């Protein structure tokens, strides 16, 4: 990977990103160009830093004490780690769906309306709620109980509610950190269908443990791996092995470790 392949259609670009927790390096030297209106998936074994990288894209790592980033994350031409950047504004443009469904302890309606309201939404709230829930393919299941708690839904429905909540604030990019890991296969399928619909309007980055899922939903795939640190320290450092179109990664990977991982030899 080098800097020469920066294209004008990229939405987010990671430029020599290294992330450390306290004294230990979690990921190092990541270069990656994420295309607009495409689905990019991050795959790799546990501890390879793919979640760390995705959280760095909307400055979620700011919440973790001792987490530091070097290099730069460029979003639409702006370095979001520059001194004068407000992380709150970054998160409004780059929304996030988390591993565990985490609706707010409020009604389904309020779950959508809360984000819209803090972002200064002025339009018709009822309409926004319906549109967002429809786009997230969960409207039919909750149209009759909009005033009930978000927790009255099943796990898969909760996760789609969380996606709806993120869509409602109309971000440019949606980050999904293993959105299906807590869900059953049917709910997973529904979420994947939702992702297909969403990429018309949003740039999507998804972290997944499931290689079939990466193959099904994504246009681009980044494969991360780990390497042992110096013998004295122990622990592992993650790094980006290969980033390419998904079909290339799965059909003709350039690196041997990618080939080994996707064919199930490790991980």
């Amino acid at each position, binding site marked *: 990977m080098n800097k020469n392949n920066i294209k004008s259609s990229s939405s987010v670009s990671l430029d020599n990103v290294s992330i450390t927790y306290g004294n230990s390096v979690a990921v190092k030297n990541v270069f990656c160009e994420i295309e607009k209106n495409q689905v990019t998936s991050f795959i790799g074994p546990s501890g390879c830093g793919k979640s760390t990288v995705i959280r760095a894209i*909307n400055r*979620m790592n700011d*919440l973790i*004490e001792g987490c530091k980033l070097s290099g730069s994350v460029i979003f639409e031409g702006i370095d979001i780690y520059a001194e004068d950047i407000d992380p*709150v*504004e970054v*998160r*409004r443009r780059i*929304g*996030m*769906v*988390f591993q*565990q469904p*985490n*609706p*707010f*302890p*409020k*009604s389904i309606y309020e779950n959508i309306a*809360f*984000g819209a309201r*803090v*972002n200064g939404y002025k339009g018709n709230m009822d309409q926004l709620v319906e549109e967002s829930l429809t786009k997230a393919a969960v409207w039919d299941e909750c149209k009759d109980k909009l005033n009930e*708690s*978000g*927790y*009255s839904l099943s796990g898969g429905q909760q996760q789609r509610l*969380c996606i709806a*909540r*993120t869509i*409602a*604030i109309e971000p440019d990019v949606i980050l999904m950190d293993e959105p299906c890991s807590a869900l059953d296969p049917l709910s997973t399928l529904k979420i994947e269908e939702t992702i297909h619909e969403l990429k018309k309007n949003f740039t999507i980055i998804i972290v997944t443990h499931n290689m079939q899922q990466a193959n099904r939903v994504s246009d681009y795939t980044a494969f991360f791996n780990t390497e042992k640190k110096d013998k004295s320290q122990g622990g592992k450092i993650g790094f980006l092995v290969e980033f390419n179109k998904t079909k290339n990664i799965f059909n003709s990977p350039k690196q041997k470790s990618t080939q080994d991982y996707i064919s199930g030899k490790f991980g």
Partner: protein
Amino acid sequence: MNYPSKKSLTYNPSLIRNIWNKALTIISALFAIISVLPLILVISYVLIKGGSYINIDTLILEPEPPGDDLLSAGGIGPAITGTFIMSIIASFISIPVGVGGGIYLAEYSKSGKFAKFIRFGSNVLAGVPSIIAGVFIYAIIVSTKILFGSMFSGIAGGISLSILMLPTIIKTTDEALKLVSNDMRRAAFGVGASKFTMITNITLPAAFTSISTGILLALARAAGETAPLIFTALFSRYYITSFDDLFYEMGSLSVLIYNFALEPYEAQNQLAWAASFILVIVLLGLNILSRWIGTLGAFSKNKV
């Protein structure tokens, strides 16, 4: 073979371990009963003895000066309103400060030395005897006449009670906010909420029931205190009739009990019993209310 031969599987009550087991179960049950016995005895004694002196006159009249030549000893009305007013003053001071401090500890402080110091300090404050809080307020407010020249006053009483409420409120707010799942915080940040919005809209509402429980328990403790009030509000036999009266001596149930129970006259002793009855009912009520609030929380994560 290091083990004895295999025994029968049927329960054998004469085995030493089974006898010990039974004996210890009985002993611990006995101690459990003894530990709640004082509560039951005190409350039932006060309720039976005090309840018989309760009537409309006792509840609303002002107490008469002690003496055995009067037809009626009057009532405890001013003491009830006094306790009520001073509890409200104490709440107005301690709830904003305590909840604010708890929010700082749980949401803003990064477990640094300052936060540790505050937590330690509020724990120490919780252990300070209430009479010390009274003497402290006496020294800085009553004896200096700092409040517009007034000495003993309802306001000074309220302030001394607020000192007693503060540590409980800080601690319950801190603990309640720490119990709110970090998923909630991430979710709020994920939709672009600022930290302030996140706290006011997500974590505080989620912790609301626990915080109000803590506030009520703190209030229940403060409302029953006597020692700090003797040094600060003293006692008054009269109703307050204007805002200015807040700056003069104010009666309260607990100080009325202290004063009147020591009188040699039967009539005053009866008023003390009536006041005890009201105080116990109020404190029980506050405790039960806090329990009930604790069971609420329709949208909390654990109860769907």
